[in-house]
């Protein structure tokens, strides 16, 4: 029998394997981008940097019983009787600490950094038809330290480099690389340059159908798409403006909040939104100065009589803008068989003159958002 106390400070096994686990999480995230892209906790993150998303592929699969079909045994407070309800499905039973085998802890929740996710997603994305516009747009002066010199003011002393020089000099002189007394010749100073930065600007014209047929799910899809699109554009442009236009039979410019939350009603006249978009472009965002990306989400249920006008205006949009995107959102879970023949997507695909600058996708499921993003921002045309 003995009691001992040793130095464990070098013990790192747990941390090392924790790193292996983290690595697995990162891999799993990469594999699951499809579902993560449209995960509520990210889309509704409200500026939080880190969010939790479920990562299913990190379960440790084994043969096990279906928890929900099994009979369990528990202890009560002394007064339980047959028929008592002790918990509701999805919330687990009791609150004891031993609840690890409860459903709910079924999949691993990884804490992810939205910026990191964004990096992964944007790895594959490119900005089509990015143009170097607006040289004469806002100019801003910035100071950047770009050079190292032997003379300068003490405040700008580069300590790291000076120490290196000192070591080098001693090494040359004595053959031993060590720090010794400083001489003036060791010292290095940083100097700066003034740079004139040209800012380029982009505007996204987010259009959404809010007719009676656009339910919660469809709006959510549009919202997750815009969330990533705006983030992506911000990595490419200094300034990204977004204009929100919602429409049913008439179009209106609305604040962001309202765009995503307002109730739906009425029929669909798509051309109304396009006309308003063109007006706004003409008024506020001359194509000479702005990269313009109009995107439109709808379920494609346009009034038949409006189709010709919609095609004409869409043509005009493709002519003015960098890229015109159109996303047609289906019913949740519905697959292609439900596609109505009169839907706008097929009409656009048939009749738009400038197909080069048009991208149309169909989204039926949350998981389709990521492929849609790739479709919109995939490789095409000449890359800049």
């Amino acid at each position, binding site marked *: 029998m003995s009691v001992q106390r*040793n130095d464990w400070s070098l013990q790192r*096994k*747990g941390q090392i394997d924790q790193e292996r686990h983290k*690595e697995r999480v990162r891999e799993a995230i990469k594999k699951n981008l499809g579902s993560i892209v449209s995960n509520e906790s990210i889309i509704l993150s409200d500026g939080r940097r880190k969010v939790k998303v479920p990562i299913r592929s990190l379960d*440790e699969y084994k043969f096990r019983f*279906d928890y929900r079909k099994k009979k369990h045994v*528990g*202890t009560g407070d002394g007064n339980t009787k047959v028929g008592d*309800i002790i918990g509701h499905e999805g919330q687990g039973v*009791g609150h004891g600490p031993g609840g690890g085998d409860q459903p709910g802890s079924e999949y691993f929740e990884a804490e992810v950094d939205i910026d990191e996710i964004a990096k992964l997603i944007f790895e594959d994305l490119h900005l089509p038809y990015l143009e170097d516009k607006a040289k004469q747009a806002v100019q801003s002066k910035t100071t950047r330290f770009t050079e190292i010199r032997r003379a300068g003011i003490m405040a700008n002393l580069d300590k790291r480099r000076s120490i290196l020089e000192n070591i080098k000099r001693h090494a040359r002189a004595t053959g031993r690389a060590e720090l010794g007394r400083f001489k003036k010749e060791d010292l290095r100073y940083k100097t700066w340059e003034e740079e004139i930065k040209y800012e380029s600007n982009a505007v996204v014209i987010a259009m959404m159908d809010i007719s009676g047929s656009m339910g919660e799910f469809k709006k959510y899809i549009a919202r997750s798409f815009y969330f990533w699109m705006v983030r992506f554009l911000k990595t490419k442009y200094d300034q990204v403006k977004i204009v929100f236009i919602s429409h049913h039979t008439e179009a209106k410019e609305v604040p962001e909040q309202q765009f995503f939350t307002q109730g739906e009603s009425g029929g669909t006249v798509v051309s109304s939104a396009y006309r308003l978009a063109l007006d706004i472009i003409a008024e506020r965002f001359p194509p000479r100065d702005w990269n313009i990306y109009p995107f439109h989400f709808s379920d494609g249920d346009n009034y038949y009589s409006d189709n010709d006008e919609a095609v004409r205006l869409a043509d005009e949009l493709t002519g003015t803008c960098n890229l015109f995107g159109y996303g047609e959102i289906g019913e949740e879970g519905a697959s292609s068989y439900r596609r109505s023949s009169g839907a706008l997507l097929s009409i656009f695909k048939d009749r738009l003159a400038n197909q080069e600058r048009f991208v149309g996708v169909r989204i039926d499921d949350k998981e389709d958002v990521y492929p849609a993003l790739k479709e919109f921002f995939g490789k095409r045309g000449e890359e800049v």
Partner: protein
Amino acid sequence: MIDKEVKELEEATDQIWEIATSKLGLDPFPVHFEIVPATVMYEIGSYALPGRYSHWTFGKAYHRMKMMYDFGLSKIYEVVINSNPSYAFLLETNSPIQNKLVIAHVLGHVDFFKNNVYFSHTNRRMVDEAAMHARRMAEYEFEYGRKVVEEFLDAVLAIEEHVDPNFFIKKQPKDEGKKEKERKKRRVEGRYDDLMTEEELALRDPERAGDDRSRKPSLEVPEKDIVYFIMKNSPVLEDWQRDICAMIHEEMEYFIPQMQTKIINEGWASISHARIMREMDLSTNDYLEFAELHAGVVSPHKGQLNPYYLGYKIFEDIEKRWDNPSEEEREKFGRPGGEGREKMLEARETENDISFLRNYLTEELCEDMDLFVYELVDDEDWTITEKRWEKVRNQLVANMNNFGFPYIEVIDGDYDGNRELYLMHRYEGVELDMKYARKTLEYIYKLWGRDVHLETVVDEESLVMHYDGSEHDED
């Protein structure tokens, strides 16, 4: 912790040892106690053995446990290793009284490890063995790549519980001897062996063919030990992969007795610490602190089952019924009384969880602990559906069958004459988690290299699941 405290703890340990062995009849292995910081505690807790091989699942467990500790949600006071001598780890932030309780508790566990019959075949030098495994595993990582080894381990770990708790019987030399005899017999028969080519001989006597790929399934089925069966008969595994299977198998042989004795082992350790602490000369304040800790350890978790609580209550009841038997018990069973300690020692020696509950969970205890059976009704409410004590006990026992895992056997290793693997789930009234079963079949495919089938029951009808390496199918 300063040296003075270590010294005090050493003295307390001697005192506790004295009480445990001479007053309570415990007979533990000698124990080395080691005081460690929380990170080390959680590390050993998550690997279950110090110095074990590396795998991300341990890292995941470590991360979770440590986070729970950091957030103050749960705390491990002690980790104890079944070996001779035993190793026990104490948290450096424990108070002196916490440590005394933990030391007493540990002696209960170590006594259980040494004397319970289910542990009699466990490797008492497992720490060394695990370290050797870790080294071999690291060599394989170096040779074949970390990812390759990791992914292979993922597959083996998916079925690690499917080993035979009575595997040690298989290891008996009698089996080998028989085989050797058979081979000799066959050799005698081969009178014209010298006229045949090596290939022809190999066809007649598979064991002559050294090549793994032509290794024929032994076809000794049914085989409950899936890990062993695959290790021995898989047409695709390389030697290092079979070695990993063997290592995992060996570690599971070591852990399975612990899985079979959760309730009784914790119960024994808890009743032991309670009785030891009662014999110690504690000040009122110390006693209060102890009582509070003890109450926390053996408290019922409403709606769940705390093994410490259940086991403790049953041992307490045994002590009572054999020390002071009722009139009826005296007459009917001829119990003279005063045999409580003896009976408890006997139970800790001969029972596992299943037999412990069957033999000692009484109607009075079920009522006292307010045990019940609950299940999901209408997919919505977890509802109490049974309170009759025998039904409750039987359900509890049934849930512990095969240490809580579905009982699955290999029933054919050459299915369809095509070396496919056919598994049978011995259905006992509870369906498998189908999603998990499918994923696990994918892992088994990886180990077996050919189509894998699993027969089970869904909605009271037989269902066979297939996986062919790319697609799942059911009929």
